[in-house]
């Protein structure tokens, strides 16, 4: 082997080929399937993703509700919470937002910002004590 460089090159090439085949088999088809899925999920006709960002002055259990969607809620008291809803872009549903503060909390604030494609559509701040509940209306994008 030592005296035949051509044989050395062939051996290294065969090794690389043996290592590369499984890697190629695992990865070669995935991007195509993933792209198709992503395109379908990202842009169904007439549907937009609305992102709701809730921020509070102290930790609270936060939840957001919209018609035809399951309730999104934080599992523990937090100061920031984000929920995403896919809704008709021409008639987005209004959102009910709730913040439940702990017994030690005083007067608190809850801020809601609604965005689609990074654009701010609605922003509202509510004040209250113990529990803040209110409605955020989303204008058409």
């Amino acid at each position, binding site marked *: 082997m030592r005296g035949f460089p051509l044989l050395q090159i062939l051996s290294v090439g065969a090794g690389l080929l043996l290592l590369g085949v499984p890697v190629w088999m695992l990865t070669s088809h995935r991007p195509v399937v993933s792209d198709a899925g992503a395109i379908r999920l990202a842009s169904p006709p007439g549907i937009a993703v609305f992102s709701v960002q809730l921020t509070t002055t102290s930790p609270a259990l936060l939840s957001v*509700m*919209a*018609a*035809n969607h399951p309730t999104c809620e934080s599992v523990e008291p937090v100061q920031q919470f984000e929920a995403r809803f896919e809704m008709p872009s021409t*008639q987005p*549903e*209004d*959102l*009910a937002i709730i913040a439940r503060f702990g017994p030690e909390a005083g007067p608190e604030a809850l801020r809601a910002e609604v965005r689609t494609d990074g654009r701010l559509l609605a922003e509202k701040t509510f004040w209250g004590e113990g529990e803040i*509940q*209110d*409605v955020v209306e989303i204008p058409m994008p």
Partner: protein
Amino acid sequence: MLRFVLIIAVVLSSATALLAQPLKIASLNTVMADLASEVGGERVEVADIVHAGVDPHLYEPAPGDWKRIETADMLLAGGLGFEAYLDRMRPSLENAGVRVVVGGDVIRPISGVCENHSKEGHHHHGVIDPHWWHSISNTRAVVFQIRDALIAEDPEGKAFYEVNAEAFDRRLVALDKWVRLQVVLIPKASRVLVTSHDALGYLASEYGFEVLPVQGLTKSSQPSSQQIAQLIREIKEKRVKAIFAESLENPKVLEQITAETGACSAGSLYADGVGVGVASTYEGMMKHNIGTIVEALK
């Protein structure tokens, strides 16, 4: 300190009320009667001339009712044409010293569907809708109207009426928020109310519903078969899920529409005033109506 003085004033006026005769109030409207009871408390005695279970669109005062009205200090009415006989009786009552308080005088009226539909079955708007209490903001205005009337009639109870009206107003603000939070659960495309008659225009305007009534504002005429056919077409087009009867209605026409459209019958609403049981107060009536609507359309 101010709170202490206020409490003393309320306690004193409550004690005075126990000694004095309560103001006699007669009411032609069950909602107005409930609001007056909330604001007037023990300083007033409210008599329902038209009580829950009586159809106010069909009611005419009997001689016995006249006597009770004429001997009252104050008469409450919804107004805006809800009591068609009110204009006839008002001058003689005012001459007799009865203060007439009409809720419709302090609200911003909207128009509803008139009785005579066109040949094509389309609804015409332009007639004033007298069912103002289905808007909580209207009711809040009427609460303060009643407070002012009670103070004018019984100035000694001023602090008492003011405290009661403020407390009731806070409850109405909370009720309004509760309604808005409930209505969010109904998809916007499903916010269509098919009802016996056109009594929920204020609720529709305030909370984003469309109303498709079988009859107009006063129930004075029955819909033609052509009008019913048009309504059935609209219900199918809009894919309406549920149809609401009213507590004082003959449900036959609605049953026919329900059968032909496949929409479900979603229970009764109190449209012309407060109801019975848990719906026997204004707050109870609103909660019953909104709960029934949300349950059926969400």
